[in-house]
């Protein structure tokens, strides 16, 4: 028996899609809910948040949505690729080691084995760990729907609020695509929470850029869990870019960043604590850059 405060969704139709075309048809009228790994959807399904439509569309047998490929300097990660597959992928380990590193901090084996890249994006949690490095890599999301041409959207502009995105009810994320970073690429990911595994980040940060002689260029500074969506600190990036990282620059960057994030106090952490951790992460990582 379900506890009384739970509201199981009313699903009247089930489609076990075996091709992308079949899935898009099943989503076309806007009443479908795509099912990938299920680690978010099955945890949320009884909470009555109204996000599950009347038709469950299982994507798990669509092989064309799986896998990691590299072509002409671009990496394409199929939406159904699991976090474990990211962690174990040799190609990524060589060319974009940041992604396996983030995958390594993601939940637990049991969750990594099923959670998908597309699902982590579509669920649109402000604390979604895997979104941060993908935003920092200037990823584009490939979006398909029935009867229209596929479109691409910058991942940094994909989220509109907690659990909210620009994705239409008839649309499906099919892949994320990004350029393989330069040789002198520097990328770090920091997160904190009460437990080493399975923590929903209280604060997560991704800092990337081209690093030479202690100077960071073309930087990206992305935070999770300190705003309604992932936050790109573009002003702080401009301040950091091309500048010698001295004490003055670090202090200025910390203050500017603190103005760009908008953490709240909730059951998991206070606004003060989140701000403090965000500053600590950035300071620590800028000092690392300075010494390289």
């Amino acid at each position, binding site marked *: 028996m379900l506890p009384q405060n739970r509201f199981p969704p009313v699903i009247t139709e*089930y489609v076990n899609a075996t091709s992308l075309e079949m899935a898009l048809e099943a989503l076309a009228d806007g009443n479908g809910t795509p*099912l990938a790994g*299920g*680690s978010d959807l*099955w945890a949320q399904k009884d909470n009555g948040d109204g996000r599950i439509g009347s038709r469950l569309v*299982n994507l798990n047998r669509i092989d064309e949505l799986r896998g990691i490929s590299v072509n002409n300097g671009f990496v394409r990660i199929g939406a159904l690729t699991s976090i474990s597959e990211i962690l174990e992928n040799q190609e990524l380990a060589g060319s974009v080691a940041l992604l396996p590193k983030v995958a390594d901090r993601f939940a637990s*084996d*049991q969750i990594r084995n099923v959670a998908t890249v597309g699902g982590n994006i579509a669920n649109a949690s402000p604390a979604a760990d895997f979104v941060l490095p993908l935003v920092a890599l200037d990823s584009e999301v490939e979006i398909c729907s029935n009867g229209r041409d596929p479109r691409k959207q910058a991942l940094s502009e994909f989220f509109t609020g907690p659990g909210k995105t620009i994705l239409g009810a008839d649309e499906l994320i099919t892949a994320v695509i990004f350029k393989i970073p330069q040789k002198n690429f520097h990328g770090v990911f920091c997160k904190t929470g009460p437990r080493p595994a*399975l923590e929903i980040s209280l604060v997560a940060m991704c800092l990337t850029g081209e690093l030479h002689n202690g100077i960071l260029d073309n930087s990206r500074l992305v935070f999770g869990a300190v705003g309604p969506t992932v936050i790109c600190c573009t002003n702080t990036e401009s301040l950091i870019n091309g500048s010698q990282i001295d004490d003055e620059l670090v202090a200025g960057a910390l203050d500017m960043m603190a103005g760009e994030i908008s953490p709240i106090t909730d059951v998991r952490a206070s606004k003060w604590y989140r701000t403090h951790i965000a500053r600590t992460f950035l300071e620590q990582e800028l000092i690392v850059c300075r010494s390289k």
Partner: protein
Amino acid sequence: MSLKIEISLVLNETKVEASVGVTESALELLRREFDLCGAKLACGEGECGACTIIVDGRSRNSCLTPAVDLDGRDVMTVEGLWTEKGVDAVQQAFINEGAVQCGYCTPGMIMQARYLLNRNPDISEAEIIRGLEGNVCRCTGYKKIIAAVKGASRIQEGSPG
């Protein structure tokens, strides 16, 4: 009346069929339809690992696994480890070490340990600790559990535990 879907799967090396509710979890299905009560419902949201099963060679939380998605898959639960040949090396090692207190987390621990050893029979202590991160023992009997997984690795190699 919720929507029912017919599925067939290989469950502990036996082909079975079932009629499953579309919102049912694999955990609910195993316990309701097959009386396989090894996998436990504890947190119900993937935090504790007490419901761990192995599906197509990968461990996962059965509480977060849609039962309908087991269609055509190969599913192993803790009950499937005990064959005519006796208990599995992991089970024997848990017995040897006395790595059980209240027992609620044990089936999940054993399945995750089985998964870890399938992937790496020569697993280190650090890898065991890391691999069991998704499994919680509220009695906090981790030392013996970790020792048992190491022992299982030795039993598999043929030395006497």
